């Protein structure tokens, strides 16, 4: 019953999305206030409710362990903890695609409530969002249905991939999809604006909150993914330029460029075409990310579907979105209007430069990610593009971005003027901590790039501090206060990330050793002694938990687990966190020694100041939502005082 009802609800959501597209289109053509526009809004709510109910039914099927549903059988097991039964609903391709569609529908309904102010513009945006929903719901209904059945049903499920049975990874996909799919609203608004021949400034005003919300969510999703990779995969890396990581990083870079260029467009009318183009491109790259993850064209720890047929579907959706979006842009870009001019030392100029650098970085990442695919398509031998390329090509661009970022908030709009800005920044004062940070890193033998990164991180943090000190007291409204705080937090967050990354790049070499009980290793000035290894089985896994006593009195407990239903071993890292960094320990197999004792493979590492990465990401997310709050407050004020 659940499975068939769920399947029908997905069919209903598809048809409702189609109705949303068609009825809103007619409604927009009639001025945006006709019964057709209203029916389009109702269809949008119907799509949201039916897909939400379908998603709830899928979760219910997981809780009941109904293995007559192929997706449940492939991703669950009756002994799995309830929490992971629920999160498995989006742990595989089909379920995560349902979540993707649900979020699309959520944003579609959101557009009907708080979309562009002008009714026809709003109805057109709702219609285009309906088009995107229709594409994805059709893909879900016909090629990725999570309610496909198995007859006869297996007695037991194959369990969810054990590395996905983790709290961070339970939250990571919804946040990531809020980001990816949130950019669809910016796409729909931009495309609708082009169709309606709306001015660039109005389009920017309409899409800014959506872009901000999506970008902040994407930041949170990527950060959680990096954190998960750091402690779950057992190698201590948090970013590896993996193709799937890149697939999320490209829309993030373009999203960062978009939220800044939209400010310049809304406030000064600058870069209207560029802002609209970024809004279109960011979403197209989000679909490209979905293609990379779900088509099987790349090999990655993150890729969770290996199905070329589905890849063709997604490629089709990518094609439709790209052709529709960029086609419209080519035809209607002239209607966006031209902005006022600006001086090279104006804020617009710095935002423009940062935009170019961020877009170039996204281009570099795109080339590095797709190059192996093209080489193979052209019959060449398989190649892989790894960290050396990305570090060499993308890092200099990001370094330049970081160099310019703290200066921009101090520059005046339009006419510009570097002198007053530099006076405000008290540049000499800022350079003191920068020099200290660089000196300290050189003292500890850090690589050149880490020294540069660390110094730039401190530069960004110092700039953000000066920014909030200067601008917050001058902010007269709550909206301006939120905006100033958001900007400073986000910029400081970038600084923390740069400093954390620089410190982590300077970490001491890892220590690998086989330890029996009572034996010790030394790392980063601490002695770690293996005191015991005991069984710590869970409901769906067997585990050996080691206890290592640290010389400062702490204990660290890494585990080695065997998930019997999935027939897979995992390493659960033990972390000893302090203000100086993380002691990071993983345990491997036991090997018997000649004297009959068992020695365990222990890998220990020290990650200095790694907490700064988490703090930095959190500040960026908070900054994004603070800026979003400022947008909402401003919008309310406009509604009250038109």
């Amino acid at each position, binding site marked *: 019953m659940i499975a068939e009802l769920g399947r029908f609800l997905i069919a209903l959501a*598809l*048809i409702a999305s189609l109705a949303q597209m068609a009825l809103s289109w007619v409604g927009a053509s009639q001025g945006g206030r006709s019964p057709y526009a209203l029916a389009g809004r109702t269809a949008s709510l119907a799509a949201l409710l039916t897909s939400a109910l379908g998603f709830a039914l899928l979760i219910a099927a997981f809780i009941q362990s109904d*293995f007559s549903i192929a997706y449940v059988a492939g991703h669950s097991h009756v002994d799995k903890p309830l929490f992971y039964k629920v999160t498995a609903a989006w742990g595989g391709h089909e379920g995560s695609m349902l979540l993707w569609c649900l979020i699309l529908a959520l944003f579609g309904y959101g557009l009907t409530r708080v979309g562009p102010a002008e009714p026809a513009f709003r109805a057109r945006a709702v219609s285009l969002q309906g088009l995107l929903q229709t594409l994805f719901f059709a893909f879900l209904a016909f090629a990725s249905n999570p309610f496909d059945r198995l007859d006869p049903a297996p007695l037991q499920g194959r369990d969810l991939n054990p590395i996905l049975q983790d709290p961070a990874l339970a939250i990571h996909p919804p946040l990531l999809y809020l980001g990816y799919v949130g950019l669809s609203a910016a796409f729909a608004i931009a495309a609708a604006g082009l169709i309606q021949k709306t001015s660039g400034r109005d389009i920017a005003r309409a899409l800014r909150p959506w872009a901000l919300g999506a970008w902040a969510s994407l930041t949170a999703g990527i950060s959680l993914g990096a954190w998960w990779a750091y402690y779950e995969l057992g190698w201590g890396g948090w970013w590896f330029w993996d193709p799937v990581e890149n697939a999320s990083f490209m829309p993030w870079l373009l999203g960062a460029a978009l939220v800044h260029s939209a400010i310049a467009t809304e406030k000064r009318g600058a870069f209207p075409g560029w802002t609209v183009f970024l809004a279109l491109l960011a979403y197209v790259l989000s679909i490209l990310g979905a293609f990379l993850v779900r088509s099987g064209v790349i090999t990655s720890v993150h890729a969770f579907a290996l199905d070329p047929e589905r890849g063709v579907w997604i490629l089709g959706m990518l094609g439709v979105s790209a052709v529709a979006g960029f086609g419209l842009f080519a035809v209607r870009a002239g209607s966006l209007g031209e902005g006022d001019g600006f001086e090279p030392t104006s804020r617009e100029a710095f935002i423009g430069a940062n935009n170019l650098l961020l877009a170039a970085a996204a281009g570099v990442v795109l080339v590095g990610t797709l190059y192996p695919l093209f080489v193979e398509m052209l019959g060449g031998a398989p190649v892989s593009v790894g960290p050396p390329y990305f570090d060499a090509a993308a890092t200099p661009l990001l370094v330049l971005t970081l160099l310019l970022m703290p200066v921009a908030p101090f520059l005046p709009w339009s006419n510009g003027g570097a002198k007053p800005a530099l006076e405000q920044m008290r540049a000499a004062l800022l350079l003191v901590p920068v020099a200290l940070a660089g000196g300290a890193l050189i003292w500890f033998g850090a690589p050149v790039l880490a020294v540069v990164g660390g110094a730039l991180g401190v530069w960004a943090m110092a700039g953000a501090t000066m920014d909030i000190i200067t601008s917050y007291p001058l902010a007269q409204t709550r909206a301006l206060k939120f905006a100033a705080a958001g900007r400073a937090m986000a910029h400081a967050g970038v600084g923390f990330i740069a400093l954390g990354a620089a410190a982590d790049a300077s970490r001491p070499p890892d220590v690998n050793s086989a330890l029996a009980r009572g034996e010790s290793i030394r790392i980063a000035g601490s002695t770690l002694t293996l005191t015991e290894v005991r069984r710590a089985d869970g409901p769906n896994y067997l585990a050996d938990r080691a206890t290592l006593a640290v010389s400062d009195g702490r204990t660290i407990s890494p585990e080695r687990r065997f998930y019997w239903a999935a027939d897979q071993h995992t390493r659960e890292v033990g972390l000893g966190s302090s203000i100086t960094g993380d002691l990071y320990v993983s345990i491997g197999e036991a090997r018997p020694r000649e004297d009959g004792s068992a020695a365990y493979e222990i890998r220990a590492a020290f990650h200095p100041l790694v907490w700064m990465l988490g703090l930095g990401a959190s500040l960026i997310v908070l900054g994004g939502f603070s800026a979003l709050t400022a947008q909402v407050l401003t919008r309310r004020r406009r509604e009250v005082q038109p």
Partner: protein
Amino acid sequence: MIALTLIIAALGVGVAMWIASPLAKGAGSPVHRLVAFGVMAVLAVGALGVYLAGGQPGLPGQPYADTEARLAAIAPEDLTGEEQEERLRAIVRREPGNPEALAMLGRFLAFDGRYLEAIAMLERSVRVQEDARVLSDLGQALVNLNEGTVTPEAGRAFAAAMELDDSLPEPAFFMGAAAYDAGDREAALQYWAGIAGRLPADDPFRQAIAVRAADLLSRPAGGPQAIDPDVLDPDESPEAMVSRMVAGLEAGLEADPGDLTRWMVLARVRAVLEDREGARAAIAEARARAGDDAGIGAILDALERAGGLEPETEGEEE
């Protein structure tokens, strides 16, 4: 099926009517009302069509609770292996402290080669209630997991099993194997002879252990590698080398005539050299020194049979 059909029909028509309702309300003419009705019909029929493209309305859901109840209603002997495992797991899930269920599931998994999980189940069983048979099975699962090596952990399980019930053949056999692997032939003989002596004469395990013990204990210690390479003469023939080995064994026995395993090696080497009388004499010497130890007697009987050294009957002599 009927309930599902009714719900689907109600949902489809309801949602279609809801979406089309603004059109119907705002309709100023019959044509507009017709449009509203058309939209509603298209939505309802469209949703049904999409559903039927892959839907299986006749296939009921199968929550695990139903599967569990179905398996519980079938006699165990009528269940397939997979179903038996599920049923055992269901019992363990319901009664996590049931030592019999844990042990049965552990044995099932060990039989299926899933040793890691089997060990966990057997360990849980003995933690609830110590049982010699389960401890022995635990030891064997540990040995199998370690590709035949009797690890210290397996040794502890076997020792605990023997302490509870020394009539079990497997723990003693594996303890003997561990001693043999460690080079302690005397201890291996004690374990194997001990269990062979305790088992009834018609027990098939007794015969199997005796045959294996006779084979292992009569092999020259360390094999050909045991011959000191410094004293190897490249021109020496294999026969001469074996004769030298026999001489070495005889000299050793002269110094320590109570070394039963060395008598067994000597018997085997002489049998290989076709010195049947000499081989019989070596076994007889070992038998005499073992006294009335039934276990050692069984092993020596097995050695005799393996080398074709049984006393010849009169009929055969003719």
